[in-house]
């Protein structure tokens, strides 16, 4: 039989007032296997702990139950004490007779009875405990950052500056992300590129950062500390080691009318192109879909003009593998398409643009060199309407959430418009103005009060084009914006020259697929889910995978940067040790009993369950069984209750332990009495 010691605490008066602790300790003595049972005024005090430690040594205890306050309070304290006395700490359990008993029941008789049963159940449980060791997982001190926008850049630099190697994977030919295309940033109106470009260069030059642009994460295997990443380097058709980035190829390329991704369609690029002048790496890429050589089989002009002979038409996608210990996902966002808005012409009207396009128009390096003009005729818009919440907070559009950044950038846009076209009239249709943030509300007020933006609270119901006479005998196309001013309770109709939709933010395309590769949950809009919305906002549910920026939800630049630094700091905490130590509460599989229905795999939130082949002597696969990765398992136990054969079990909460606990509650109350009665007779 086990040798259990029970130690009942008075907690001063806290327990002893409503629970007869002496009787509790006495009652435990009648349980087979209980060697000592004592009470003491303050178990958690040094002398109290000494009583326990002495008993462990002197009585060769194989298990300890301390009956006192909630395990959340002192479990660690006592387990440490047990360890100091040479007992495996996991052989000590806490019976909660304070929060769950003495504090909630006034009747001393009832309280005592309950305390006896609580303690007894923990005694029975401890009999089923066995020695456990914390799990250690070796850690590869390299991080993968997916996405080279501002969040990715920040995370990569922070980790790299912390002395760890970083792999950065960026899908497009250059890092920089959306921020590289912005004109000026709120609320300070400093130039976006001026603050971003140096950081991009720093990434390129950093000795600890290995950059893969025009590349994608193909697969992710492994678990925290030990991920194996397969990266697909898409064929760039240019050997960037040789290319000097002189740009002559781009200059000579005959394909001129390809809408530029960077310009959000407001400008054009060539088939061989450097996405934007400050691109990192500043090397061109051939867009094979539009390249004359690739589509028609001849041209090769770029090859001819290339001095260093860096053009490689025969380049193919290349796969590389990298081992990393942590992953930061910073895949960013895109905005929804205007064709989602049939009421606004579903993208048919050229002069309805989105916020990102406006940024390009307003940018000094943009296609109009900072001049705000109508895409349709290149004229300055005299009247401009900004529509906030285009799609956001609109369940009918499938986006019930707030895109968060629109209020601020719309104000900024109205402001920039006014700075450039002083006589122009800017209307802003909004639902609510959300401008919480340092200097944000002041910024919006400035747009309204100093820059004359006319804020109208209400939705725009319809926009259509109408050709009208401008009074000078000219036919001009106007956009008729029909809306309602809900504050004045009147309908409005504005003849606008241009409309800017603050279209809703959604995750980058392919977010869900990436989440599946990485094995983290995502919500119905494909934003990655954080492990805990309050306490673990930059961690994903998969250990070792962290989130930064808009991957998780719409965020502005400062937030994204803060996120990224937080994620980087989490990565560095992880990397601060050679091995990761965690508590041993993980699931285990008995391969003999498992018959491979893989229901457990389906319910595991951590992708901790994989399929293992069982082979016979001839090496043939006879069946498949579940295997649990200790690195990934978080010990929720969901796999066990779905397992019909009970082929798995959760260490620390085994079926045996729970069975013993349930069985410790006597079938009827009389039994307790007779048992103590028996004991007295024996004496």
């Amino acid at each position, binding site marked *: 039989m086990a040798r259990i010691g029970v130690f009942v605490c008075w907690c001063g008066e806290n327990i002893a007032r409503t629970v007869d602790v002496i009787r509790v300790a006495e009652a435990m*003595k*009648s*349980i*087979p296997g209980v060697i000592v049972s004592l009470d003491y005024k303050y178990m958690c005090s040094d002398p109290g702990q000494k009583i326990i430690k002495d008993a462990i040594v002197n009585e060769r205890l194989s298990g300890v139950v301390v009956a006192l306050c909630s395990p959340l309070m002192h479990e660690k304290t006592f387990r440490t004490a047990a360890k100091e006395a040479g007992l495996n700490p996991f052989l000590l359990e806490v019976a909660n007779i304070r929060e769950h008993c003495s504090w909630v029941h006034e009747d001393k008789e009832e309280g005592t009875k309950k305390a006896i049963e609580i303690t007894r159940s923990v005694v029975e449980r401890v009999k089923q405990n066995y020695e456990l060791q914390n799990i250690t997982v070796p850690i590869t001190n390299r991080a993968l950052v997916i996405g080279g926008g501002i969040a990715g850049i920040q995370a990569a630099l922070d980790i790299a500056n912390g002395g760890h190697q970083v792999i950065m994977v960026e899908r497009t030919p250059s890092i920089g992300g959306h921020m590289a295309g912005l004109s000026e940033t709120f609320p300070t109106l400093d130039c976006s590129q001026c603050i971003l470009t140096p950081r991009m260069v720093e990434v390129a030059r950093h000795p600890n950062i290995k950059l893969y642009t025009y590349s994608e994460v193909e697969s992710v295997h492994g678990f925290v500390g030990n991920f194996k990443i397969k990266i697909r380097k898409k064929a760039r058709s240019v050997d960037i080691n040789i290319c000097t980035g002189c740009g002559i190829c781009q200059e000579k390329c005959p394909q001129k009318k390809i809408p530029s991704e960077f310009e959000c369609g407001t400008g054009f690029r060539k088939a061989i192109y450097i996405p934007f002048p400050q691109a990192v790496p500043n090397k061109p890429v051939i867009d094979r879909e539009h390249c004359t050589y690739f589509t028609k089989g001849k041209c090769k002009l770029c090859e001819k003009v290339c001095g260093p002979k860096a053009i490689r038409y025969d380049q193919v996608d290349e796969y590389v593998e990298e081992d990393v210990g942590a992953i930061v996902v910073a895949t960013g966002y895109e905005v929804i398409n205007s064709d989602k808005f049939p009421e606004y012409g579903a993208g048919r009207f050229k002069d309805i643009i989105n916020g990102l396009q406006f940024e390009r128009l307003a940018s000094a390096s943009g296609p109009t060199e900072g001049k705000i003009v109508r895409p349709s005729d290149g004229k300055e818009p005299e009247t401009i309407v900004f529509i906030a919440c285009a799609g956001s907070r609109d369940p009918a559009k499938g986006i019930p959430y707030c895109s968060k950044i629109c209020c601020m950038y719309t104000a900024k846009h109205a402001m920039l418009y006014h700075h450039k076209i002083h006589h122009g009239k800017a209307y802003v249709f909004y639902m609510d103005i959300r401008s919480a943030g340092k200097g944000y509300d002041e910024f919006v007020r400035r747009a309204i009060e100093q820059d004359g933006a006319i804020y109208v609270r209400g939705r725009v119901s319809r926009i259509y084009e109408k050709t009208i006479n401008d009074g000078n005998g000219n036919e001009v196309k106007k956009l008729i914006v029909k809306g309602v001013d809900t504050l004045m309770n009147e309908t409005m109709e504005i003849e606008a020259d241009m409309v800017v939709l603050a279209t809703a933010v959604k995750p980058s395309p392919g977010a869900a697929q990436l989440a599946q590769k990485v094995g983290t949950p995502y919500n119905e809009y494909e934003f990655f889910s954080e492990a805990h919305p309050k306490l673990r906002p930059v961690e994903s549910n998969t250990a070792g995978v962290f989130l930064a920026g808009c991957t998780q939800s719409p965020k502005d630049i400062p937030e994204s940067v803060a996120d990224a630094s937080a994620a980087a700091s989490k990565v560095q905490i992880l990397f601060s040790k050679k091995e990761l130590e965690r508590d041993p509460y993980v699931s285990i599989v008995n391969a*003999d009993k498992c018959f491979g229905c893989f229901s457990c795999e389906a319910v595991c939130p951590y992708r901790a369950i994989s399929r293992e082949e069982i082979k016979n002597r001839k090496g043939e696969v006879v069946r498949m069984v579940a295997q649990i990765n200790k690195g990934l398992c978080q010990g929720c136990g969901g796999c066990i209750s779905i397992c019909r054969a009970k082929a798995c079990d959760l260490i620390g909460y085994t079926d045996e332990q729970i069975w013993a606990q349930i*069985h410790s509650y006597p079938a009827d109350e009389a039994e307790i009495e007779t*048992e103590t009665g*028996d*004991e007295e007779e*024996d004496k």
Partner: protein
Amino acid sequence: MKNYQLSAKDLAAFFEKVLSNNLRLIAPIKVKQNESQNVTKLKNKAHILFREIPSKDDLKNIVIDAYTDMSAKEIFFPRSEPVIEYTNKKSGVVIKDIDPQAKETVLFGARPCDAFGFSLLERLFSWDYDDPFFLKRREKTTVISLGCTSPLESCFCTSVGLSPMNTEGSDILFTPMSNNNNDKEDRYLVEVITPRGEKLIESIIGISSDLKNIFTEGNSLVQAKAAFENKVKEQMKRKEDFKDITEILKYKFDDSQLESETYRCLGCGVCSMVCPTCHCFDIVDEGEASHGYRMKNWDSCSFALFTKHGGGHNPRDMQFKRCRQRYMHKLHYYREKFADALCVGCGRCVKACPVNLDIYSVVYNLKKAYANNKNKEDKEK
């Protein structure tokens, strides 16, 4: 021993007397099921089981002309019974014996095959070590069997050397003569076979004179019974003699035919549970460490875990091996040890098997194949 005759209409009076003599009466009844009146066509067959008839009012439930779905071995060897009770406290372990609850009992309506089964089981349960639970109940039970006049398609008692009206194992045998065309009157031949049977009849007749009248001299019917018995035997569809099967089974043990014949066995225990002679059991503790019972529960050699060692090795790892063991044990091993085969030909397993595995036809096919082989060999010689 004496022979009587009893008119069918007086049967109830006999039962009443049994009850009023404070004897426990067990007889086949149609067990009340939660059956509804309508379209549930799947389960419209009645379940006839041996149950205690607690009072006079329940006599009407007794079913005489049907065959029970379970054998009567439960009376002596219940599907589950405690053998010891233990209490394990700090003060020590106390073990209490369990009273077998052996009451004076009259078992009515067992078939001759069932009755013979009891005597087969008795040989095992008294083999060197006497199982008090079985034997005490057996000792206190008077078995009144009911001769079979219309055997089922699945019956094959003559194959194992019995007959629809054989007497071994019974204390008293009732043979309904009414089904015999030559016998117009609705009456039973009552053959008293053992002293225990005689004691019962005497105790019944002895207490009441009117009962003396209902049990009248029956020797005159004995001859008619013999003829009737032959006639019924003739009617039986399954008549292959199993006498020489031991040899064949020995020969066929590792033969693929035995495997293919039993390939469809699913490994449930229906056959063992309904069998009047299957006696394998399990011993398990029920309860907690502090108090509980040690149980003796029916088990079956068809179950995969039956022979699985704690270490994981299972000598009979395939279902056909388990099936083979069942046949071998019944028709070969038991016969070697206890003279008779452990099968009484009641056909219950045949009826109950969900995949229609049929011990009779397996043996029949084995025999045929064996004979063919022999012929071939002889010819070659």
